[in-house]
């Protein structure tokens, strides 16, 4: 909504994969399970992360190495293992094993009771006796509605906080639990800012411009209610979009994969015009909700693709196989995607404000000094 209203979406090419989700459901197995000493194994029972500049494996556990490396590196390592045919095939796609057996039943019950419960319930594996099948799953959008440190956007009176916002505490990657900062700190600031504006405003009648916008929004919904026989379904387009984004704009991207996804998403965007609303009720209409959400997701997907296409470097969660190096000279900048109705968004850039944390070389495992 903010995007369509003219607020740019910032840094949309940065999408975090969490390395350990359950296959099929995508349920997360917390990083804590690796923090306690759990290890990742490929189909040969080998701790494969040592092949990706995260080793050596011992002594274990230790910080910033192997399984406690960053989420993006671990997800990328899975991708490489999969290409080498060293992952494990299941009904719900390829997986690796998260092995907690060395922790023992007592420690697992004490420190990771939820992990044991989730694994037993949803994949039928008791981690005390067997490794848990896991794979990378899409987890968090670092980018979002461009906002300043007061959670304000470029439209006066419009505030944003949480995952939908991009105040830039995450950069090109993200540390676990930073979502709480986004919610608690910037949620409070957004609320305070909104209250200040509301207290200082004495308008009781919405202006005619706002009235007109409301009528237009109502008109769009009425049109949906009136349209018959379009034939496109929410689940059909949604599943195609999922596959397109995973294949073309996933853990690794290339110019070709992104261009292909872009074309496909444009096609999906056109077909969305023929979506058919089956539920015409005025009460708790989730079919309508899903149609509106899908339309918004298509716009967001296009912003991700076009932002990723134009960032010709690899940085954090944005990894290009055709531009494997980070290029601070050209791209130490935020991307800003501007909405253009019916077309690909326009991308502009803004310099990064660097305060305490300077960009450095990312080194893990044995490479650390």
């Amino acid at each position, binding site marked *: 909504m903010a995007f369509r209203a003219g607020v740019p979406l910032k840094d949309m090419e940065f999408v975090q994969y969490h390395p350990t989700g359950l296959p099929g459901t995508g349920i997360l197995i917390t990083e804590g399970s690796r923090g306690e000493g759990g290890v990742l194994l490929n189909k040969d029972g080998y701790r494969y992360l040592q092949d990706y500049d995260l080793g050596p494996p011992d002594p274990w556990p230790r910080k910033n190495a192997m399984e406690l490396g960053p989420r993006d590196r671990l997800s990328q390592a899975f991708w490489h293992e999969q290409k080498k045919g060293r992952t494990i095939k299941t009904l719900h796609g390829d997986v690796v094993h998260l092995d907690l057996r060395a922790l023992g039943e007592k420690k697992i019950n004490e420190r990771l009771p939820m992990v044991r419960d989730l694994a037993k319930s949803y994949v039928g594996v008791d981690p005390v006796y067997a490794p848990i099948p896991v794979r990378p799953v899409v987890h968090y959008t670092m980018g979002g509605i461009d906002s300043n440190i007061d959670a304000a956007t470029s439209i006066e009176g419009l505030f944003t906080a949480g995952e939908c916002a991009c105040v830039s505490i995450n950069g090109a990657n993200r540390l676990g639990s930073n979502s709480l900062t986004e919610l608690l700190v910037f949620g409070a600031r957004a609320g305070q800012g909104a209250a200040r504006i509301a207290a200082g405003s004495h308008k009781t009648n919405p202006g005619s411009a706002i009235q007109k916008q409301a009528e237009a929004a109502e008109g769009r919904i009425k049109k949906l209610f009136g349209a018959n026989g379009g034939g496109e379904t929410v689940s059909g387009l949604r599943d195609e979009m999922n596959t397109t984004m995973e294949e073309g704009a996933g853990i690794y991207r290339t110019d070709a994969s992104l261009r292909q996804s872009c074309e496909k998403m444009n096609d999906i965007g056109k077909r969305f015009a023929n979506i058919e609303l089956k539920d015409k*009720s*005025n009460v708790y209409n989730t*079919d309508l909700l899903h149609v509106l959400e899908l339309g918004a997701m298509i716009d967001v997907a296009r912003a991700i693709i076009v932002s990723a296409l134009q960032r010709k470097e690899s940085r954090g969660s944005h990894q290009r196989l055709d531009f494997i190096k980070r290029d601070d000279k050209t791209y130490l900048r935020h991307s800003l995607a501007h909405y253009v109705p019916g077309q690909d968004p326009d991308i502009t850039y803004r310099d990064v404000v660097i305060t305490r944390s300077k960009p450095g070389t990312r080194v893990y495992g044995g490479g650390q000094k």
Partner: protein
Amino acid sequence: MTPRRIEFEILRYDPDKMQKPEFQTYLVPCEEDWVVLDALNYIKDELDRTLSYRWSCHMAVCGSCSMMINGEPTLSCKSFVRDLPNQVCIEPLNNFPIERDLVVVLDDFLGKLNSVKPYLIPREKKSLEEGVYLQSPAQLKKFKQFTLCINCTLCYAACPQYAHDENFVGPAALALAHRYNLDSRDVGRTARQDVVASNLGIWECSFVGACSEVCPHGVDPAGAIQQAKIASTGDYFMDLILPGRKS
């Protein structure tokens, strides 16, 4: 594995179009690792887009997808198809008005949660500069169990007392009050007693314990209510011995 065909009998209701709720049957090819929510999503995607129900996390932490499954208040994301027969009856939660299909009106429940002042009431307010309110792991342990509530309302659907009198404050709200009363950083117990220790609060509970049985996170609201009864009884005798004391 070939999917198993399960017949779902689902109670439907649209106040715009129907006089009263009616059952509708759907035949769903279910994978054995599915939960009931997967079957509902299959119906929504493939068979009938008008079916309405709430859900969000699909992993038993958000508490949105509560419903009656074969007569039991259950989270549909934690009800495994492998444990169910070939016929499954799904209804909206007992003891709540139906808004649409499996969606119920939660206003009464949310009001009750608010009524017990479910927030920290510290002895002295600290400013941001003064830092956080400290607590030891032992102090946390005293009430941690009661923090695990996900507001799924299964306990209200299971509670015979709430079915009997909707003015009963009810299990989750009373357990939440108890959670704050046991918190070493909180001094709000007196302020909560008006609601908690009233006739419609803990004393309305007849200790059937159904709430604790259906709780998906082992919060044990029945235990919380009985503990609160003991503490309130103590208050009563102290008031008799020392009239006018400050509690």
